[in-house]
């Protein structure tokens, strides 16, 4: 059965050093997030900034702690496909409910 198997299961996992550095980055990003939240000057851009920061954290954990960066592409697909659908659904629902897609208020009441 192993004739065609050129699997690449044993990727070198990142070293402990990398893990620690990622951990530090996560902490800094969290501090930044909370910081942004408390500084009134940032409130105009609060939402985009927070979204960027938390996506960065998300990506770091997934790439390094869950090893997606060096692992088989199938795993990226198994996470990425549904994630794209989930985000798409979320955006669509927000549009539908906030009435952005409606010309009149009919659905906006929801």
């Amino acid at each position, binding site marked *: 059965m192993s004739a065609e198997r050129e699997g690449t*299961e044993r990727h070198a996992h990142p070293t402990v050093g990398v893990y620690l550095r990622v951990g530090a980055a996560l902490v800094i990003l*969290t501090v930044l997030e909370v910081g942004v*939240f408390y500084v009134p000057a940032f409130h105009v851009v609060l939402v985009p900034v927070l979204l960027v920061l938390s996506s960065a954290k998300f990506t770091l954990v997934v790439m390094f*702690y869950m090893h997606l960066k060096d692992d088989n592409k*199938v*795993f990226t697909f*198994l996470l990425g496909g549904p*994630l794209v659908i*989930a985000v798409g659904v979320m955006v669509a*629902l927000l549009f539908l409910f906030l009435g952005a897609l409606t010309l009149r208020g009919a659905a906006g009441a929801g």
Partner: protein
Amino acid sequence: MTAHTSMGLDNRKMAFWAFIGSECLLFGSLISTYLVYKGKSIVGPYPPEILNIPFTSVSTFDLLMSSLMMVLALAAVQRGDMKWGKIWLFSTALLGLVFLGGQVIEFTDFVHKGLTIGTNLFGCTFFVLTGTHGAHVTVGVLWLLTLWVRALQGKLGPANAMTVEITGLYWHFVDVVWIVIFTVVYLIQ
């Protein structure tokens, strides 16, 4: 395991990634509902009156650190260092327990301030969303403790690194979900 598969990948690991993909839609639906109903509560208490950002920031930090412990546990098990493997596994579970403790305190506090699951839409969506996440953490803690006990019994070694890796995938995913919840629920009010 890996010797038998066509892509050279571990079956359980692949199943787990598929499971995580599926969980994206579970939490995606919960978070969508939270957002869609945001600001629609008719009676208080409303989020700004009740959410305790400093407290939850600490919980968030705690969960992030547990993720770090988890990768360290994996690294230790992989290099056969079961002493540290046990230590890191246990600390991951412990930090998970601390997080759960935090959630218990938070929920009790909310109830005292008049927010229950039936009070208003904020209560409904908040408790069901964070409660579902909490349930995931609980399963994770049980799982980690099981591994830790197995390690104490000497039944967990480098040969089981894949089991630890999969546990890690689950744990990190639960962490990642919290990253989103923390931003969406707590910081963007």
